């Protein structure tokens, strides 16, 4: 390493995606072309490419919304020009591991909402399931279309100090981020066309089509072309850009609750040509809001009567109702047992060791070691409401101690894992920043995963939180064909 963009780069003690440390820093073979190209960039060229990327995001309106922020809530999602590269051999294992996981989670949900065998055999405590706020008694015994619960899953993967891929969480309700993955790719193809081409990167562009096929697979009327719609909570939702993006890419209507009407257990969409029967709803709002007659009755986002139509089998929902149970971070701790039980196999991907505050032994350990652990609420998403022990004040820790004792079921703790780092353009030059990976899994006729996923990067120095709502950015992810 001498001159160029990477001249001051240090891997430190972290696992670095791009470099080995063997007395001196050495570029990993699968990064060589990227390294050469970027290292040779002049400051001007770099600025040009960056502003090209930013203006492209602005023009396309690629934004997200941060809740609870006083300085204007809509933001451009920060994007970093250094792509993350994943060699094929690594990806193959990740892909198999994710398939295994989504199968097990679906079998688990089917089991819980039918004969509940895993509870009867004592593998998962009954209490855990019954106390989960997303456990929907309403659908017990109901056969969901095609027996699939989680059609669209976004699992968060991290790599630890040794570079081992681990699953951090599964998002089985309404995972978002796939639009950034597609936009990032479009920008990278324009910014580095030659490097992109010479590296033989697996394409991701098929995602909208695969998603549409996944939705169509669920249609209760297989005899005709299914009518699919995307149900969005509206423009104030943090992922509204993504809703419009996906609807446009798939060529289906984007609707809000007031655009749909349930009549006689069928769901119709109001159009300029009159009512059109809807077969499949890709809903981007939580169970709680989809039907005020069934769930939260003070919400106007949903469609009254939707659940009746769903339970009669006249309309399908993706994801199914009740999948939040698989999202629960307490359930997460039992996924290895599920894989063992339903599939008779060992998990391919590791999980992060999890302490359940609900168990007395674990709770005592957590309370004594708060400064070394990360504490997460069991049923929040977006990185809200977390405590990172090493970066917390005494006041915060005491606060959490109180909350854990008050409501142990709602908290879990995990050892702090030093996520792998990736070179990232920062104000001070290229610096190592922590990254994770969110692949998107589609489960329709078969399970499909577009190669790679959304790499999220914690842009704040030393931060381990990659969520967009907490100051994270993203990178394009290149899975190599060979």
């Amino acid at each position, binding site marked *: 390493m001498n001159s160029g963009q990477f001249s001051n780069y240090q891997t430190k003690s972290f696992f670095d995606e791009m470099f080995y440390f063997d007395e001196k820093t050495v570029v990993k073979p699968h990064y060589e072309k990227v390294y050469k190209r970027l290292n040779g960039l002049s400051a001007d060229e770099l600025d040009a490419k960056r502003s090209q990327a930013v203006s492209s995001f602005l023009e396309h309106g690629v934004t997200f919304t941060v809740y609870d922020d006083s300085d204007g809530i809509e933001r451009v999602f920060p994007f970093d020009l250094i792509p993350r590269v994943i060699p094929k051999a690594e990806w193959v294992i990740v892909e198999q591991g994710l398939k295994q996981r989504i199968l097990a989670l679906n079998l688990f949900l089917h089991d819980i909402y039918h004969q509940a065998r895993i509870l009867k055999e004592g593998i998962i405590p009954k209490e855990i399931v019954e106390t989960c706020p997303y456990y929907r008694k309403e659908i017990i015994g109901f056969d969901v279309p095609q027996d699939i619960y989680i059609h669209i899953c976004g699992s968060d993967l991290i790599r630890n100090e040794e570079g081992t891929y681990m699953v951090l969480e599964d998002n089985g309700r309404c995972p978002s981020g796939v639009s950034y993955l597609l936009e990032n790719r479009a920008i990278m193809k324009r910014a580095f066309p030659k490097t992109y081409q010479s590296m033989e990167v697996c394409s991701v562009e098929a995602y909208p089509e695969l998603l549409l096929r996944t939705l169509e697979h669920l249609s209760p009327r297989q005899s005709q072309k299914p009518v699919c719609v995307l149900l969005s909570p509206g423009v104030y939702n943090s992922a509204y850009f993504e809703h419009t993006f996906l609807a446009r890419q798939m060529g289906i209507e984007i609707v809000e609750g007031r655009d749909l009407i349930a009549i006689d257990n069928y769901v119709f969409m109001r159009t300029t040509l009159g009512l059109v029967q809807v077969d499949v709803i890709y809903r981007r709002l939580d169970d709680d809001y989809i039907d005020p007659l069934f769930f939260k009755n003070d919400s106007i986002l949903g469609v009254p009567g939707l659940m009746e139509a769903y339970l009669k089998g006249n309309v399908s929902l993706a994801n199914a109702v009740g999948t939040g149970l698989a999202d629960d971070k307490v359930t997460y701790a039992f996924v290895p047992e599920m894989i063992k*039980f339903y599939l008779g196999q060992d998990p391919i991907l590791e999980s992060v060791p999890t302490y359940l505050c609900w168990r007395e032994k674990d709770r005592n350990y957590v309370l004594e070691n708060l400064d070394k652990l990360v504490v997460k609420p069991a049923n929040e998403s977006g990185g809200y409401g977390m405590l990172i022990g090493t970066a917390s004040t005494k006041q915060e820790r005491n606060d959490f101690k109180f909350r854990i004792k008050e409501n142990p079921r709602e908290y879990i703790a995990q050892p702090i894992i030093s996520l792998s780092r990736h070179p990232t353009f920062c104000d001070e030059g290229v610096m190592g920043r922590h990254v994770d990976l969110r692949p998107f899994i589609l489960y329709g006729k078969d399970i499909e995963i577009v190669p790679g996923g959304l790499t999220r990067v914690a842009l704040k120095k030393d931060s381990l939180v990659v969520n967009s709502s907490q100051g994270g950015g993203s990178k394009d992810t290149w899975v190599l064909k060979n």
Partner: protein
Amino acid sequence: MRLYVFHKTVYRYPDQVSNSFNEMRLHPLSNDLQKCESCLISVLPTTCMREYLDLNGNLVQYFEIPEPHLKLLIEARSTVNTVKRVDFDEFPYGTTMDKLRDIEKNFNCRNYLQSSSYVEITPTVWKEAVDVRGNSNDVFQTAYQIMEFIYLNYEYSNSTTTVDTLSSSIIKKRKGVCQDFAHVAIAMCRSLGIPARYVSGYFFDHTRNRSMRGSEASHAWIEVLINGHGWYGLDPTNNRVVDETYIILGSGRDYRDVAPITGTYFGRLPTSMDVDVSVKKLGN
């Protein structure tokens, strides 16, 4: 060749059935010819999956569903890497029929030389096999002729035979599916003293118009033992020497040893059994 198989089986019953016990042989083998990268087998209604290795070296998954149910769904998803295994310039010719005497006493071959549940070695089979052999004195040549004879003289028909049809009845009808063709080929080989076994699996139909037979369901073919060369696969349904487009699930004396799904339950016969197999070629 990297291949992906999705094998889905759905049984629907007219009334609730219960106490269902099943064994599945759906896990591809890993051996010199192929390596199973991953195999995910799922069953609905949900159940606890267990496994064991049977006497033929095949991996068996088994489960039980005591609760009443109307439908049984079994899905297997496997990714397999197969290696190139046929060199058309170097078929294992050169082993003469009299050399078969040497392996006759070999303990491991005995199973594959006798009659078994589906395969009966009768004078009729032997007579036919001798005719097909003609004046060939080479083991591989003879086995190849048997494969070709069945391919050319037996009609591929889905509706003539059932899963329980024995080789003797197929020889009379001269009709059947891959399972039947394999049983007849095995009977003919064994009657001449060539060790032959039944292989269950899948193949990737690489022909442009998908003209090969049996790709829509699980497939079956035979393997014959050539002294000094090992087991060689021959597919009488498609008249092909088995190459890297084939995926082996397991092998045994006949269908009974390697049936993909077998089991018992308490209740009425299924109204339907739908099998859907798709084999895809993955990039490298």
